[in-house]
């Protein structure tokens, strides 16, 4: 039990340390990224409409349809745009300020290279721009390139890079000053599965070090392998934030669809119908029972009891509409 206690203590020490590096005046740790009633418009076009949130350490996915305001949100967070209304702070400092930018790494979606430069020179140049001396910049560039697995290709000219290599150089450039907050806009675009797995490991490592990653992606299944925490943005507004399960549980009027495989499907179906949370049961092919149920938390508890009472052997239990994709669809539907 001592081991448990010491581990816990170590963890307790480690977590706040990441947060308290820059405390706000009243002593409470300033969140790594905070939006306070932020709106942004471009002329008559509104990009973001009164968005408030704060980001927790670890990996958070940013999802939403095209033109939802994801990129605006990311650009505000990196201080490339100034909010029209409201305040964006990074560790308690305005995202627009130079100190804040020191803590932020940004991987843009579009390509922003000097095509004639080599990948290594590009990352070095970015490191130099971050204020490191030539030698330190070179070291840091080398480390960043190694992290993204581009060390052996970095001498080549960016012009000849594939889409995946370009993505990795952009990522290296974002990592070069070892920032606490990483804002990654579609970092997995065009990356092949082998490299993708390495990058996932890298992201996990960074999260483990207490850094915060905000990753936008259209490939929701890929995102799900990284995190279950998402922010859903649509029509310029932050529609949902939390873990997928958490958000899913909040949809009272969208009953869950659960597929259950079992040795005695008919009995199971009968028993399920007696549960107050169950709205409908359907017997499908191959002994699969599809249930539509409300109030997930109570349903699963009741289902667990039912299995024990009826002495069933359940071979499959799957909520088919609790994926990020389903969440996104429901959020968009409900917000109409």
């Amino acid at each position, binding site marked *: 039990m001592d*081991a*448990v206690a010491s*581990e*816990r203590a170590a*963890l*307790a020490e480690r*977590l706040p340390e990441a947060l308290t590096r820059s405390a706000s005046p009243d002593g409470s740790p300033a969140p790594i990224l905070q939006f306070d009633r932020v709106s942004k418009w471009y002329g008559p076009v509104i990009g973001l409409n009164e968005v408030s949130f704060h980001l*927790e*350490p*670890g990996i958070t996915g940013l*999802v939403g*349809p*095209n033109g939802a305001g994801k990129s605006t949100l990311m650009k505000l967070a990196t201080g490339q745009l100034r909010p029209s209304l409201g305040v964006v702070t990074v560790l308690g400092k305005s995202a627009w300020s130079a100190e804040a930018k020191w803590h932020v790494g940004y991987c843009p979606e579009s390509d922003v290279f000097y095509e004639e430069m080599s990948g290594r020179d590009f990352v070095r140049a970015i490191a130099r721009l971050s204020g490191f001396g030539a030698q330190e910049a070179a070291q840091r560039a080398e480390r960043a390139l190694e992290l993204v697995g581009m060390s052996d290709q970095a001498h080549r000219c960016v012009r000849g890079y*594939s889409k*995946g*290599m370009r993505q990795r150089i952009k990522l290296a450039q974002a990592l070069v000053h070892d920032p606490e907050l990483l804002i990654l806009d579609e970092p997995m*675009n*065009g*990356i*092949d*599965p*082998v*490299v*993708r797995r390495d990058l996932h490991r890298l992201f*996990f490592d960074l999260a*483990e070090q207490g850094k915060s990653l905000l990753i936008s992606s*259209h*490939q*929701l*299944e*890929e995102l*799900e*392998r*990284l*995190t*279950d*925490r998402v922010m859903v943005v649509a029509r310029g507004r932050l529609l949902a934030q*939390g*873990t997928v*399960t*958490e958000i899913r549980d909040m949809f009272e009027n969208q009953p869950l669809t659960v597929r259950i495989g079992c040795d005695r499907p008919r009995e199971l179906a009968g028993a399920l119908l007696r549960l107050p949370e169950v709205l409908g049961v359907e017997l499908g092919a191959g002994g699969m029972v599809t249930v539509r149920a409300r109030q*997930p*938390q109570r349903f*699963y508890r009741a289902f*667990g*009891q039912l*299995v*024990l009472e009826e*002495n*069933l*052997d*359940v*071979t*499959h*239990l*799957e909520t088919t509409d609790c994926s990020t*994709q389903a969440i*996104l*669809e429901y959020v*968009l539907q409900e917000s109409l």
Partner: protein
Amino acid sequence: MSYNGLRMALIELEQIGRRFGNHVALRDVTLRLEPGRIGLLGPNGAGKSTLLKILMGLLKPSEGQGRLMDVDIRTGGIRLRRLIGYMSEADALVPGLRGAEYVALAGQLYGMPRGEAHRRAHEVLTYLGLEEARYRRLEEYSTGMKQRLKLAQALVHDPPLLFLDEPTSGLDPAGRDAMLRLLLTLGRDHGKSFILSTHLLNDVERVCETVVILYRGRVIEQGRTEELRTSRYDRYRLQIEGRLGGLIDDLRAEGVQVLTATRGRRAVPLGAEVDVELGDNGRASLAELVVLVPQDWRTRLFFTLADNRGVVIRGLQRDDEDLEQIFHRKIQETGTREAAGHGTH
């Protein structure tokens, strides 16, 4: 141009190789593919695009021979491309044209008479949901519309075979879902064969029946997706709501091996009897356990143990391999085999 979709192999390749100078892009590729929905997978530089180019008659193989729908790939050239609708990954657009003009141009280039090409362009665009946008200039198209337009220009002459290069790139989730459904319909209900080349294994898993995995210029695996999957009857994936702590101990006591434990996709350390869970942001996440059960295991026991510990099981599935795992396993196997091969030499 009659084509009996059932009898004939779609593609038959025998020991195809292609060299560019010293670089070997493809070696010893032998393939026989039935008509159907085919996924072409492989990391960058595996030779996917070289293979597609050879099949389109744009490159000659350095060695080997093959036929695509009974047309020789060495001498087929233009005849091959007439059978294939090609949807490129890059925006292969002609600026200044309107949507319908662009598709009609593609039709004419495929060899359709001018009038037919125009008529058919409208028909295909309507089918792909671009009816409203037909008369807009290509510059005004959004990414999602461009993708569908590119599909339209590949479909205009009703080819028996489509080559689709990253058809969902740049699409948002709704657009991607629509595109995949469209491809599935085209393949299943309208008898189109296609080769889908992509890095998104989920897309392939959803749409394709057959996969071909290329790695370092070789075909390291080919076959129907179901057959490649190894069934693992003794492995389960559990989704748990609540604290894991005691549950893991109880499972171990029953002889269950806990392979991995994660919460919110982050690994929970499994050392000794340690249960350290992430404090603040772990609470709302489900924990996921991958477990190896002993023989004669009744899944009911999971529920009993969970009930004892006051946690709730939210998901229970057999942990069969998905395409992602198959892919990585195959690549790893090839890697070790090659390493072993080098060792003996």
